[in-house]
C-alpha cells in the first residue's frame, strides 16, 4: 500500500518534471523562429500596439514578415504623429568582430529605415546610428540572448 503510494507519487513527480521541462523548451522555441527573436520580453512600445523594435537572423539584415508588420505599425504611428522624428539604432550580437558588427548594425537600421520610407515616411525624419555589439539588451551568452540583441530599435528623437 505504502509502497504503491510512493511509486504513484514518484510517477506524478516525474510526470510533472517532464511537463515542466517540455514547457521550458517550448517557451524558448516560442521566442525564436529559426534564430530570429519573436518574443516580447525586451520590446517597448512607441504607443499602444506599436512595438519599438525588430529582430534579425545571425549575420542578416533581411526584414522578416513579423518585422515588416511591426514597421508598418510604426509607419502608421509616424504618419499620425507627423512632428515626431526618430532614430533607428542598429545592433549586432556579440559573436562577431567589433568593426564588422558596426557595419552590420548600420545595415540593419537602414533596412528598417528603407521600409519605413516605402510607407511614406520622409527620410528627413529618420536618422540612423549603429552601436554594433556595444549595447546588448541581454548580457547572456546563449542563442536566445543573442537573438534579442540582433535588433533595430526605433527611438523618438524629439
Amino acid at each position: 500500500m505504502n509502497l504503491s503510494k510512493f511509486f504513484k507519487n514518484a510517477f506524478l513527480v516525474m510526470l510533472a518534471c517532464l511537463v515542466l521541462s517540455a514547457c521550458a523548451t517550448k517557451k524558448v522555441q516560442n521566442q525564436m523562429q529559426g534564430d530570429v527573436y519573436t518574443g516580447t520580453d525586451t520590446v517597448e512600445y512607441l504607443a499602444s500596439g506599436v512595438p519599438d523594435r525588430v529582430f534579425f537572423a545571425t549575420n542578416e539584415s533581411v526584414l522578416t514578415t513579423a518585422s515588416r508588420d511591426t514597421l508598418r505599425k510604426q509607419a502608421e504611428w509616424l504618419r499620425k504623429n507627423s512632428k515626431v522624428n526618430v532614430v533607428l539604432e542598429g545592433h549586432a550580437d556579440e559573436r562577431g568582430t567589433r568593426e564588422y558588427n558596426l557595419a552590420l548594425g548600420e545595415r540593419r537600421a537602414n533596412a528598417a529605415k528603407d521600409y519605413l520610407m516605402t510607407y511614406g515616411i520622409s527620410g528627413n525624419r529618420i536618422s540612423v546610428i549603429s552601436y554594433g555589439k556595444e549595447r546588448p539588451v541581454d548580457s547572456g551568452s546563449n542563442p536566445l540572448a543573442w537573438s534579442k540583441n540582433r535588433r533595430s530599435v526605433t527611438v523618438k528623437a524629439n
Partner: protein
Amino acid sequence: MIKKITLSLIILLLGTVQLYALIEVDITRGNLDPLPVAVSPLSSDKNTDDELSKDLKIKQIGYKISEVVENNLKNSGLFNPLNKDAFLQKPDIAHLKPRFEDWSLIKAQALITGKVTLKDEKLRVEFRLWDVLAAKEMMALAFTTVPSNWRRIGHIITDKVYERLTGEKGYFDTRIIYVSEDGPKTKRIKKLAIMDQDGSNTKYLTLGNELVLTPRFNPTNQMVTYLSYFRNLPRVYLLDIETGVQEVVGDFPGMTFAPRFSPDGKKIIMSFAMDGNSDIYTMDLENRIVDRITNHPSIDTSPSYSPDGKYICFNSDRSGYQQIYVMGKDGTNVKRISFGKGLYGTPVWSPRGDLIAFTKLHKGKFYIGVMRTDGSGERLLTENYYQEAPSWSPNGRVLIFYRETKTDSEGKGFSAKLWSIDLTGYNERMVTTESDASDPSWSSLLSN
C-alpha cells in the same frame, strides 16, 4: 597631458669588442628551453640612492631597473631570468669584472650588470652584457636621461640585449593604447587608456562620457586615431597623446569607423557607412583630400596597409560571408585570400610584410591566426570562446589581442582582457591591466 618624453640618449661605446658570440637565441620557433640569464641588480652609490628616494620615492633604483629588465625578458618567453638569491658576486664588482665561474655555477649563460649614478640631476645608467661561457663582454652601453624615465631605461636595456642575442629588434620600449572597460555588459563605460608595454604607467586619455573604440597608433609618431561616439555621432577622431588635442577626421555625412594610419603616418584609412553600405576611404591628413578606395554594395571594413604602403588588406562580405581580401592601394586588383572554413575578420598586415594576422570564427569558436599575404600557410595560434583584433609588436614577433568571457546562465561573469601570444603559437599570456580592457594597439619603438 602626457609628460613629454625627453630621453636624451647618449650611447657610449665602452670599447665593445664584437666577437662572435657563443650564445644566441632562435626566435623563429617555439622556445621550450629559454636561455638562463642572470640580471644582476645595477649598482648605485649611497648618494644616488638617497637623492632618488627623495625625488622619486624609489628606493634602490638599480635593483628596480634590473627588475624591469628581468620581467621583460621573462615575459618574452625566450629567457629565463635566474633567482637573484643565488647570485654570489656583488653588483658593483660584477659590473667591473665578473667572476665567470660563479655565474656559470648557477647555470647562467648570459649576465647583465650595470651601474646607476646621479649627476647634475641627470640619471646616468650604464650596463654590460656578458657571455658567461665564453667569459667575454658582448656589449656595453650607457644612457643619460631624467630620473623619472628610469623604467624606460630598463626597457631600452632589454631591447639592446634582445637585439644582441636574437639578431632582431626588440619591442620593449613601446606602449599599448587600448580601451579600458568598466560597468555591466549592457552598459559598458569605455575610456581610452595608454600604458607601457609591461602594463605600468597607465594613463587615461578620455573620461568615459562617450563610447570610444578601436584606437590605433600612428607608426611614425605619438598620434592616435580612434572611433568616438561624441555627441552620438560615431566618427573617426585623431588624438595627439602629447597635447591631448582631439579633432574629428573628415566631415562625413554618416558613420566613419575602423580607422588605421598608413605606414608613413600621412593618411588615415577607414570605413564610411551610409545608407546601409560600408566602403573604404582614405583621408590625407595634410590636405584633407578624401579618396574612395572601394565601391561595392557589400560591407567593406577593417582595412590595413602593407608596410610598404602598396597594398591594403580588408574585410568584406561580398562573397556572402566575411572574408579577407587584398587590393592595390588605389583599390584595384581586389583578390580574396581567405578560403578556409569559417568567417574571417580584422586582417592586419605584419610590420615585416610577410604575414597577415586575422580573427576567425568557426563552429562557435574564435581563433587568432596568421596567413601569408596570398592566403597560403594559414596557421591558427589560439582558440577561445571570444577573442579578436590582433595587433603586431613592432618587430612582428608577438600579437596582442583581447578576449571576452562567456557569461553564466544569469548573464553574469563578463570580462574583457588583453592577451598576447608569440607568432610561434607559444607564450600565450594575459597582459595585466588596471581594469578590463579591449582593442589593444601596439606602438612603434619609442627610441631607436
